[in-house]
């Protein structure tokens, strides 16, 4: 392995990243997932953590671009250069760029995630059988509205599971229309357009208006690529037109004729000789996950290695079951140490100096609850990486972790008291608490742990009872967050869903569960704590929080430790 000259590395372990735009080749959630998995490759073997930001400047800014894309190293069209990244540092340093003239997949051909239909957004299954005929791409067969669809199992005739394929009729990417579909025809600079266009742009991205008139409404989005769309050329995103004429000969499939590099191409109109519209035919594509993992290696401080099997080797090679090579592990651990906390040689460790004697802190008990003394003053809430549960009880924020809890005083300017023992205050509760809320009307405290819950009224306890008693489904393993909504309604979060509990009637309201990301856009779907504090909703993942205001806008992403607990 090699590191950059001077062993360039980040001076902090909590690295942030931001995805600036998306490729039209894959659905956004798949791209998000590929990047997240690529970061995990490195966080699995180091103490590094990666948190995604949705605005502002992140350490690693990730983007797709074509040819000249704003830095001194232009891309080169399809194949050849796939991506590049800069070593750690300020500004453009640390950023990773991906060539959008490549066909980005997971390495084994088009990745088509469906929307709507009855398959819950599953991937297309190619080939699939429909009315006895085999299909290897999305089709409009069997529909009168010209919408592309695919089966999500091998046999639609048997399973009848299907979804709609990406197209501009279904949604757009980026822009300013929140994913609204294209509106055809639309007017742009006085001219009418019946399809997506690259007019008005110099980066080759296809776009459309999402209202009838762009000139007046200025609403637009970028068009997702169909699975049959050509890559690069001068007709990116258009489907092949078969048959087409090339040098007076008729072609019924992609060809390498006319090229010296053997790449397959097709015309996107009937006659190439006349229109000269063309692009490369979709192939296996490049695994965004593998390329991103390599680029993020650069962004963390690794140079190219000459170990052929290592991730940091400069050439692309598809690997089905990827695991990080020992050469890569040694390289990254030289810079950041190992996951268990072993530090690299020659690293100076500065131990934080406590200036205040923790024994001198005067704990104030949770009002209305038995008075408890701190059990282990050396345990500082500021040293906790994350908490099992955070909730507001009697106006104070309570933070639970491993059988203990701390109380953030609302009276004494955010003073942190504790830790206290959970079993001393609430003897019936287990040491690990997933979520809790205090009913505003009755002041009863509801506490959830695994598939059970308890209800405390002062010192009296009811429970444990099964989650199903509240009307929650049996497949829920835990309740990860609870939010008061009004005086007798509470939202309970688990996985990607939430339910609304009528506390008074002790039942789940009709119409639930609902998807978290449909109601609470822009927050992590894998938040392990959700709580209400000072009128804002906080979604926590690891040590970070996403704050959502009353207008359901994420107005801040930050560190729980510094922003909420006010740790030094």
């Amino acid at each position, binding site marked *: 392995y090699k590191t950059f000259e001077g062993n360039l590395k980040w001076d902090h372990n909590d690295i942030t990243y931001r995805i600036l735009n998306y490729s039209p080749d894959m659905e956004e959630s798949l791209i998000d997932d590929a990047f997240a998995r690529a970061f995990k490759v490195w966080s699995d073997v180091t103490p590094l953590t990666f948190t995604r930001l949705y605005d502002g400047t992140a350490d690693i800014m990730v983007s797709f671009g074509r040819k000249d894309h704003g830095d001194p190293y232009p891309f*080169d*069209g399809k194949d050849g250069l796939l991506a590049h990244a800069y070593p750690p540092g300020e500004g453009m340093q640390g950023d990773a760029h991906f060539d959008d003239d490549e066909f980005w997949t997971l390495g084994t051909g088009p990745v088509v995630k469906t929307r709507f239909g009855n398959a819950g957004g599953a991937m297309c299954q190619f080939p699939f059988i429909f009315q006895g005929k085999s299909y290897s791409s999305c089709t409009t067969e069997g529909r009168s509205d010209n919408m592309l669809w695919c089966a999500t199992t091998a046999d639609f005739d048997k399973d009848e599971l299907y979804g709609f394929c990406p197209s501009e009729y279904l949604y757009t990417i980026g822009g300013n229309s929140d994913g609204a579909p294209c509106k055809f025809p639309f007017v742009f600079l006085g001219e009418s357009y019946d399809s997506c266009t690259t007019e008005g742009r110099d980066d080759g991205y296809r776009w459309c208006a999402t209202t009838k008139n762009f000139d007046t409404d200025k609403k637009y989005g970028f068009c997702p690529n169909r699975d049959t769309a050509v890559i690069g050329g*001068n007709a990116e995103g258009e489907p092949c037109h078969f048959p087409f004429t090339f040098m007076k000969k008729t072609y019924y499939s992609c060809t390498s004729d006319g*090229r010296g590099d053997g790449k397959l191409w097709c015309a996107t109109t009937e006659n190439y000789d006349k229109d000269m519209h063309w692009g490369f035919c979709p192939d296996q594509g*490049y695994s965004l996950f593998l390329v991103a993992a390599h680029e993020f290696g650069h962004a963390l401080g690794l140079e190219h290695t000459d170990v052929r099997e290592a991730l940091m080797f400069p050439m692309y090679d598809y690997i089905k079951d990827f695991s990080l090579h020992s050469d890569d592990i040694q390289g990254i651990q030289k810079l950041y140490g190992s996951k268990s906390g072993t530090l690299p040689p020659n690293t100076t460790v500065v131990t934080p100096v406590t200036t205040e004697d923790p024994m001198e802190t005067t704990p104030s008990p949770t009002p209305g609850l038995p008075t408890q003394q701190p059990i282990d003053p050396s345990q500082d809430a500021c040293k906790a990486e994350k908490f099992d549960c955070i909730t507001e009880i009697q106006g104070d924020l309570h933070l639970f972790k491993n059988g203990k809890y701390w109380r953030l005083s609302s009276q004494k300017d955010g003073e942190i008291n504790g830790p206290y023992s959970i079993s001393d205050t609430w003897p019936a509760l287990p040491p690990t608490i997933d979520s809790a809320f205090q009913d505003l009307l009755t002041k009863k405290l509801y506490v959830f742990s695994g598939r059970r819950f308890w209800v405390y009224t002062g010192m009296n306890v009811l429970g444990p009872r099964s989650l199903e008693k509240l009307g929650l489904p049996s497949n829920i393993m835990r309740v990860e967050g609870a939010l008061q909504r009004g005086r007798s309604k509470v939202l309970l979060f688990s996985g990607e869903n939430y339910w609304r509990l009528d506390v008074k009637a002790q039942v789940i309201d009709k119409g639930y569960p609902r998807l978290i990301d449909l109601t609470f856009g822009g927050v992590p779907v894998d938040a392990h704590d959700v709580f209400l504090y000072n009128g804002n909703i906080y979604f926590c993942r690891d040590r970070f929080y996403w704050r959502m205001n009353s207008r359901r806008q994420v107005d801040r992403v930050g560190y729980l430790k510094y922003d909420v607990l006010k740790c030094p």
Partner: protein
Amino acid sequence: WGRSLKPVFVTFPGDIATNMTNEEFANTYLERFGYINVQHRSRMPMSTSTAKALRQLQRNLGLEQTGQLDAATINAMKMPRCGVVDVRN
């Protein structure tokens, strides 16, 4: 059937790939990825320094170190790859 087919190559509009010779392509590659120091590069198309650079490239890519622009080397250069340079100071 007896007539040999002569392939016809066309220039596709918008295609960045140019009709560079292998030698031109290799020189561009060696410069771009840090194998040749542009400042001190000889004006000769395939000089001693190029042969040295090719050997270094071949070593890095696990190829036979011939110092020649052979088929295996040019094929390796045309493989999809990362745009970050292989060799720095």
